């Protein structure tokens, strides 16, 4: 009964390939996120998404695109993979934030992507 799950856990691929990472949450949350943790351990948000709005971090290359088939899923597609894309990618979800209401995020276990 994992709350936020990601597949695969490890992904090793060649430069130039296109790959996807899947994320599913069974918490009934409306908002999902993708984070990248680079070699310096800096955990940086890439996207936040609910059924109304996609917020993209402007530093994220357009080779990265989130796809949400339904409220419980937010997959990450990466085109033309580059060496610098090697990192651990975390999916997260939360209840929607409104006004001054905040909700903590629940994280998946991470996907370690290695680009050769």
């Amino acid at each position, binding site marked *: 009964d994992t709350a936020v799950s990601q597949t695969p856990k490890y992904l090793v691929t060649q430069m130039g390939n296109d790959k996807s990472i899947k994320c599913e949450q069974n918490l009934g949350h409306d908002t999902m996120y993708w984070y990248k943790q680079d070699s310096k*351990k*800096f955990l940086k*948000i890439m996207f*936040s998404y609910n059924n109304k709005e996609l917020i993209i971090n402007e530093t994220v290359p357009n080779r990265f695109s989130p796809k949400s088939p339904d409220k419980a899923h937010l997959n990450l597609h990466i085109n033309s993979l580059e060496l610098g894309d090697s990192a651990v990618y975390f999916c997260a979800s939360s209840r929607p934030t409104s006004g001054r209401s*905040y909700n*903590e*995020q629940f994280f998946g*276990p991470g996907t370690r992507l290695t680009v050769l």
Partner: protein
Amino acid sequence: DQQVKQNSPSLSVQEGRISILNCDYTNSMFDYFLWYKKYPAEGPTFLISISSIKDKNEDGRFTVFLNKSAKHLSLHIVPSQPGDSAVYFCAASAPGGNQFYFGTGTSLTVIP
């Protein structure tokens, strides 16, 4: 532009003693702060939070202190236990935002 900083990458503490993890931020608009704990090969898990209307929040062995004028917060764990050994991330958010800005984490080792 790293708006949340954890300047100590690692910390070692004897079991039973107090662990103090520090976090600094630069954005004065941040008004909500969280601490997450992360074990190897797992995602971060929420530990404790504090709103800027408070300067202290306590949950069992964990206490977070917020000094708004210094733009500094700290997490105190007392007494520290070996199971507390993990990486601790500080995160902050501005009003109404879904986006949390994370620090780079502090790896805590509690020595039995």
